[in-house]
């Protein structure tokens, strides 16, 4: 440093001083333990008034004047075509735009939607739906049974290229239509007249009504599809039958939905306008919530969870979600092929309570089973060792490990492969350390980008232990079990057990719910005996919700329809205080426009 010109010294000194300011600021900020005012910004938010219900509906005097809901929605939806959409963000928006034959209540129960009632034949294979008589599309066109027939055919048609087409497999001939062996008009769906349609199934499918509330079964407006083709879901073109219609779509900026006056229950929905904001950065989402710009977030970032629990306890909502997080074993190659004992050892050696308490920390339930709890009357099959102490589990693990031929001199060498994510990394690291500590296993961690990861999992050439998990499409344990059928598309575990497959077949045909639950439990038990997976925890949904927003309920599918929600007034002197920057009163626009 001595031979630098003198001015550089002075400059460096000056900048060093300034640089020291920086961490000082950081320390100051970190030491600030005052709870942040909820959704403050410069406008201090008053709490909402007490909720007053009259006949189960909120009394008019407690409702805010501007019923506008601003929802953070994660990623930009890939498409708003219900048949081609995938992912939760698109699903949220579609649930507000469209309605299927059935729909869901705020608590997740399946209730009549476009169909006001239905008959199910004795053998459970024939469903007859009777639609409401006055259904209309958002442009005033009547919505009739043949719209549903057209839409289900379109969803199954391979030309539509729907990712979710396989959900329609329970319908007669769906398998042939999807694979192109039969034309779509051979699908087992037929309109008996303008207001009734009949669907024939391959086997009695107890979760079929729930399936019909999924986006794959939503009706689409035929003239629009035929006129606009791939662009029928765009602003100005989209005609929908749900509680809202699409007012504007600015990609990656916002999607604005406005109340659909033609919706069958329009008078019951209180929320006038819904703005979906695709905020990818979870920290950014929290910031916008705190600044009062959002009422509802998509999620919360893991690393802020503890802080949010302390500072925003009322706003933070955590509830069980129908999903399981587990690691999978590749049963088709070394070192896990034909080694159930070794796999069991690895399953036993980890401490799940520790993982959920200290590593992930968002209140997930540790899990030993495949199917999460909370699905109707189904009781997951909990293995015996779930009741042991961790000490006992570790002892058994060590015994099995040695029995498989491994020891301190001959440790197992394996890898855990996961896709890029902070959470995955932490968990993989923790699991690897636990294995090392209790058994002496030497584990390499392999971090891959998502698409590469998926491809490797599918090919099963490189994988040994990999991060897996499953979030259910519909509210039934079968959704989890069928993942493990031999040769199933996402069966990256190479699990193939003919008894298990036979079980799945029988379960598909079983009509009695109690017997079916028992059989599924038994199938799950069979599966867990073979240890193709290492269960860790069941998912929870976690987000921030402004206390002004009411009418929603936590449910395991995490489906929240905007039409059930409403906003309470703020508790303070001036009537409009504390809300978002005042929105212009919503125009009573009718969704007309030239659709000819």
């Amino acid at each position, binding site marked *: 440093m001595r031979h630098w010109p003198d*001015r550089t010294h*002075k400059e460096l000194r*000056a900048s060093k001083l300034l640089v020291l300011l920086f961490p000082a600021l950081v320390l100051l900020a970190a030491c600030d333990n005052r709870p942040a005012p909820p959704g403050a910004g410069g406008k201090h938010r008053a709490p909402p008034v007490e909720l007053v219900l009259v006949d189960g509906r909120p009394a008019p005097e407690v409702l805010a004047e501007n019923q506008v809901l601003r929802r953070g929605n994660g990623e930009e939806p890939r498409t708003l075509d219900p048949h081609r959409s995938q992912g939760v963000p698109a699903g949220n928006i579609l649930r507000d735009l469209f309605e299927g034959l059935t729909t869901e209540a705020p608590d997740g129960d399946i209730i009549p939607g476009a169909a006001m009632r239905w008959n199910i034949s004795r053998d459970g294979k024939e469903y007859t739906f009777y639609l409401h008589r006055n259904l209309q599309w958002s442009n005033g066109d009547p919505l009739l049974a043949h719209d549903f027939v057209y839409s289900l055919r379109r969803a199954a048609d391979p030309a539509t290229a729907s990712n979710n087409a396989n959900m329609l497999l329970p319908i007669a001939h769906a398998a042939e239509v999807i694979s192109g062996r039969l034309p779509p008009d051979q699908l087992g769906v037929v309109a008996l007249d303008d207001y009734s349609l009949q669907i024939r199934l391959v086997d009695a499918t107890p979760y079929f009504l729930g399936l019909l509330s999924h986006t794959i079964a939503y009706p689409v407006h035929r003239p629009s599809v035929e006129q606009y083709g791939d662009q029928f*879901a765009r602003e100005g073109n989209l005609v929908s039958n749900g509680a809202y219609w699409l007012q504007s779509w600015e990609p*990656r900026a916002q999607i604005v939905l406005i109340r659909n006056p033609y919706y069958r229950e329009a008078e019951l929905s209180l929320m006038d306008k819904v703005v979906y904001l695709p905020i990818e950065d979870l920290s950014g989402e929290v910031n*916008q919530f705190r600044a009062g710009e959002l009422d509802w977030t998509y999620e919360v970032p893991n690393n802020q969870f503890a802080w949010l629990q302390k500072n925003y306890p009322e706003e933070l909502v955590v509830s069980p979600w129908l999903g399981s997080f587990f690691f999978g074993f590749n049963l088709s190659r070394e070192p896990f092929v034909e080694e159930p004992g070794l796999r069991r050892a690895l399953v036993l050696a980890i401490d799940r309570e520790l993982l959920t308490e200290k590593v992930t920390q968002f209140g997930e339930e540790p899990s030993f089973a495949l199917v999460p709890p909370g699905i109707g009357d189904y009781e997951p099959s909990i293995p015996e060792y779930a009741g042991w102490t961790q000490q006992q589990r570790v002892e058994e693990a060590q015994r099995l490990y040695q029995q498989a031929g491994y020891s301190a001199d001959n440790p197992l060498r394996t890898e855990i492969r996961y896709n890029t994510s902070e959470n995955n990394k932490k968990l993989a690291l923790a699991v690897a350390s636990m294995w090392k500590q209790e058994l002496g296993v030497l584990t390499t961690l392999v971090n891959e980008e998502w698409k590469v990861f998926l491809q490797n999992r599918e090919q099963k050439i490189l994988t040994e232990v990999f991060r897996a998990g499953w979030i259910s499409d519909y509210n039934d344990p079968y959704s989890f079990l069928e993942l493990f059928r031999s040769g199933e598309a996402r069966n990256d575990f190479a699990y193939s057990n003919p008894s298990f497959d036979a079980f799945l077949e029988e379960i598909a045909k079983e009509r009695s719910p109690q017997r079916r639950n028992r059989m599924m439990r038994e199938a799950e038990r069979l599966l867990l005996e073979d240890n193709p997976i290492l269960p860790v925890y069941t998912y929870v949904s976690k987000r921030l919700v402004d206390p002004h927003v009411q009418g929603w309920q936590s449910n395991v599918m995490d489906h929240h329809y905007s039409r059930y929600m409403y906003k309470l007034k703020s508790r303070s002197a001036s009537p409009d205080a504390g809300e978002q920057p005042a929105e212009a009163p919503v125009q009573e626009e009718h969704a007309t426009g030239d659709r000819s």
Partner: protein
Amino acid sequence: MSGLGRFAASRILGLIPTLLMLITIAFFLIRVAPGGPFDGEKALPDEIRLNLEAKYHLDEPLLQQYFRYIGQILTLDFGPSFQYKDWTVNELIALGFPVSLTIGGLAMLLAFFVGSLVGIVAALRQNSATDYTIMGLAMVGVSIPNFVIAPFLILGAAVYLGWLPAGGWEWQAQYMVLPVLTLALPVIAYIARLMRGSMIEVLHSNYIRTARAKGLPEYLIVLRHALKPALLPVISFMGPATAGLITGSVVIERIYSIPGLGSYFVQGALNRDYTLVMGVVIFYGFVIVVLNFVVDLLYAWLNPKIRYEKG
């Protein structure tokens, strides 16, 4: 101006092979990555996957796809986005570019004027306390990444004070302030240092000494004689820097939830959205090439010697 005109023409011709090379390399590079646009956690039924690949011509031999794509490009049609199925790439770029351009453009303008001004002041008061403060701050500004500055700005101005929105985008000034500021700060710092160094050098040159000897007032010396040559390094830095900023800063756009072009680069690649990635890469390449060309022109205008050197 014929010297300048000939100069310009020769540079324009040079654009075409550059762009072609860019297109070719990008085209084959993205297809080398494992995984395709239609891989997802839910496996696609085979028939559907085949249909999709046929629809997007992904089942054709690679060379055939390449020539088909070049043909499409010549009509300025970048194709449909694989990922955002309701949109074409042209539409997405047309919607995203104005946003990135506004933010990036304003940031560059701010950086240029403030940075140059501050740099000139520091140069004129060389080795004084002012000089050291300014350069010290500049050093800090250059070292701290913008994704560190951004959260501070957001927490301060948006969350705690509520003066500005914490993110999101509308065509209103309040949504632009923080992103522009965050983008501009490091560039201001860099330009300030650049300008200062360059101005000091110019002020020591012979012709300036002559002008002083002739009795010209200092401010005229600076404005009329020193400024143009001192600007040269700054201009030459700003060409590619502007290109980078106006095509979208991935980080800033993510932090502030701004619908610019930046995230299409990353998301497009991660999702193997071949057409979108190609579209933005070509667009970016084009912008860089054009801006470099503009820089060259400006250079030639600022320093006539260059025009005639190329003869």
